[in-house]
């Protein structure tokens, strides 16, 4: 509480105000976040950016109705004013909130060795410079390199009308390498990112070298890339980043706010068989250092490893407080928000598929004419229609069971329940992607990750060329 210069008595008075019109529940979410970006262009780290967010969000619930207001000023007067605004969701006499503090001590999934706050930009610059030099040295066709380091440190204090008090320190780091290559008048570009919830121990020469090598290798391959034929085909999704399939095709549709409102294509499928029996899908908020991990969610609830699909059966949605109450289940720790200016809603953390019975090689060999994809830039889904898409930055044609020419810049579209049912092979090479994905929903962006073993989807529609 010292960080935000508030006292337990003040918090009690604010919550009492929030409940003065008869609401059932209220919570306070204090946040102080410092974001920093260091940027390299033209061979030099020559620009830096920072942003400070500081304030408190006050949420009031009456059943499943929400009143919300925030204040960037954490004086009692300003917070009381915001609490009065949020209280208007209810309209009956309220009661005072007893001062009954129950401090929650969560596990720490992201211990910090060196805080970003204590890390000078002077110590960040050499890593970006190394990345620039490594990339340029790797191929004479390289004409531009951009490199970015983004770091952030967030102090979070949570308190609710049930007396739950919790605090967290959330670090985040993202490193981005961008490579532009020119060859015989053609220009190709590629970028690679890595992200973890960690302090500045994140920065190592090994990490820089790994990204540098990968971005050069992938950019060079693009000169040989072609476009596949347009239409439906078998798609093999490589281990790691292909978890975007889970995120878009089913993960969003498993978020319980959509199901509570009956608007998800999976709304009537709980307990039903939705996939082959070797398909197991998990959403996990507890993986140490993972970008999607939280010590507790943004409603003060413990995060957990939530089994969504077990042996092909839909077992659980992803819940926030409101949906857990609606379904009469325990919260799953998926109530998340972009920042104190936003209401928490059900969101994914790290969504991945467990290993299956097949081998990567046998999956590729099983495809006569199809594509293999393992690198993506973005995806999207229509929750009710179930149509999802993801944009492939890089992959290969599969011809007669072998990876042949590279492919790039194609959109793939499918239907969630159908695609889930069409996962006909799952390999044993599960990999988590640490590529720094950010998930958008309802105007809010949160860090999320995913993972996947190599899988085969029987049929997806591939954007390509009609001869």
């Amino acid at each position, binding site marked *: 509480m010292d960080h935000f210069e508030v006292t337990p008595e003040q918090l009690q008075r604010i919550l009492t105000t929030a409940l003065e019109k008869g609401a059932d529940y209220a919570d306070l979410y204090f946040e102080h976040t410092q974001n920093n970006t260091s940027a390299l262009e033209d061979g*030099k*780290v020559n*620009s*830096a950016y*920072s942003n*400070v*967010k*500081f*304030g408190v969000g006050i949420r009031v619930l009456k059943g*499943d*109705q*929400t*009143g*919300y*207001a925030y*204040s*960037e000023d954490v004086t009692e007067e300003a917070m009381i004013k*915001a609490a009065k*605004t949020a209280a208007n*969701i209810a309209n009956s006499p309220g009661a005072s909130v007893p001062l009954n503090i129950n401090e929650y001590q969560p596990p720490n999934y992201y211990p910090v060795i060196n805080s970003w706050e204590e890390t000078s*930009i*002077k110590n960040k610059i050499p890593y970006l410079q190394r990345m620039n030099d490594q990339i340029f040295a790797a191929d004479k066709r390289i004409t531009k390199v*951009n490199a970015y380091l983004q770091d952030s440190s967030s102090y979070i204090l949570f308190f609710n009308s049930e007396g739950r008090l919790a605090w967290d320190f959330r670090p985040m780091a993202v490193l981005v390498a*961008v490579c532009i290559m020119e060859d015989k008048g053609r*220009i190709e*570009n590629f970028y690679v990112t890595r992200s973890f919830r960690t302090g500045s121990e994140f920065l190592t020469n090994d990490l820089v070298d790994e990204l540098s090598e990968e971005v050069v290798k992938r950019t060079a391959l693009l000169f040989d890339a072609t476009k596949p034929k*347009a*239409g*439906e085909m078998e798609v093999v999704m490589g281990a790691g980043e292909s978890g975007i399939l889970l995120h878009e095709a089913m993960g969003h549709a498993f978020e319980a706010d959509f199901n509570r*409102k*009956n*608007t*998800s*294509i999976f*709304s009537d499928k709980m307990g039903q068989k939705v996939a082959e029996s070797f398909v197991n899908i998990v959403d996990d908020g507890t993986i140490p250092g993972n970008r999607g991990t939280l010590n507790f969610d943004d409603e003060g609830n413990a995060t957990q490893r939530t089994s969504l699909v077990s042996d092909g059966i839909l077992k659980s949605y992803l819940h926030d407080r409101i949906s857990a109450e609606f379904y009469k289940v325990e919260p799953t720790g998926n109530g998340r928000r972009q920042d104190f*200016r936003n209401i928490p809603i059900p969101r994914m953390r790290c969504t991945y598929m467990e290993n299956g019975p097949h081998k990567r090689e046998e999956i590729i060999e099983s495809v006569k004419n199809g594509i293999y994809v393992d690198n993506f*830039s*973005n*995806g*999207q*889904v*229509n*929750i*009710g*229609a179930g*149509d*999802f*898409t993801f944009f492939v930055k890089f992959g290969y044609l599969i011809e007669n069971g072998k990876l042949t020419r590279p492919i790039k*810049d*194609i*959109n*793939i*579209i*499918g*239907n969630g329940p159908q695609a889930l049912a069409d996962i006909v092979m799952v390999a044993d090479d599960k990999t988590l992607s640490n590529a720094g994905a950010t998930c958008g929903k309802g105007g809010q962006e949160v860090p999320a990750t995913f993972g996947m073993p190599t899988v085969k989807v029987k049929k997806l*529609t591939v*954007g*390509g*060329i*009609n001869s």
Partner: protein
Amino acid sequence: MNTTEKYNLANLVMDHALKNGADQVSVSINDSRSSDIEIRDQKIDKLTESIRNSLTIKLFVDKKYSAHSTSRLKKEELFHFIEEAIAATRFLAEDEFRSLPEPDLYYKEGSFDLKTVDPVLDSIKAETKIDLANEVLNEAFGKDDRIISVSSYYSDSISNRVMVTSNGFKGDSSNTNVSLYAVISVKGDSSRPSDYWYENAIFFDKLNKKGIGQKALERTIQKIGPKKIKSGKYPVIIENRSVSSVLNPLYSALEGSSIYQKQSFLASKENKSVASPKLTIYDDPFITSGFGSQLFDNEGLACIKRPIVEKGILRNFYIDTYYGKKLKMKPPSGSSTNVVFTTGDRDLDGMVKSMKIGILITGFNGGNCNGSTGDFSYGIEGFLIENGKPVHPVNEMNISGNMNQFWFNLMEVGNDILDGEAFRTPSMMFEDIDFSGI
């Protein structure tokens, strides 16, 4: 903070930065107030009120550059924030191209009123807002047995900015916005299609408040029973509200940063043909009550009306001061204002009626465009058109191609402009577009 208080704080902060070693400084202070109401199935679902403040400072120190923003606006905290920011900036490498704009390019005070503020908006009562959202909802709620969910929204916002620079710029602006929105889900054969409709205005009295729920319901019901059709090349009409999805890659390619980073398929195409002669686009900052109307941009540069594409010929880029120096191009402005098209003779219905066989795109689903090459691929939703009539909705299909070719395939520009947006797009018809389906 009122405008004078914002100017005072901005000048105070600027002076502090100059005293502590900055050679040049730009300071802007923004604040906004917004109100959002969501009604779902005849019950208030969410009430949100927000008041937001931020200060952004751009620092030029010993030919080095950094930019910082914060929502903590207490004087002592700001001073400490700036001192730390200047110290950090000194560690960066020099960049000879970083500086404030040339003062003669700045907007000078005293121009006309663009009418972007509704003084009444701040006094609209919460009950009125709730009633309006309820009226939108009631146009659809219970009107069809297939309805699963109806949500309606009322939103309004008032935003103000003040900006000063150490080489003489001073300017302020304000904007208001009010909107009503409906989103509806219905039970289809095997899915739950949803669609929306909204109306937007700067002035509360000018907001079209009727027919929003009804239109959202009609659009949603039309989407029941989609089918995928055969892959192939089809003519396509893109509805006005979706045109911005294919326009955005073109606009990214016009930016100085994209050109310099070799991520623009339009680099070096000034005064060359980049699209069908049917395409003429102007950037017009001075439309009265336009959603993109402004007198100066985020650097303080005076906005001017200028052609971007004239009959398919590329005339202008969006160049800011920094990339203007790097590219040796003059910076009229690095950002777009109102994007205005020379329109044709027919609206969407007229174009649909003229189509023998083709696809009407009413929405995009994901996809992307490679800025360097112009290669694109997007998921779509819409309708199969035969003999001038929609036959059935289509889904699970992509369009793909290259932006360099795509805009040459433009056959017709409609006259149904979207006037509630800064991108005032009409519906457009293209020929020979690659679709992937069955």
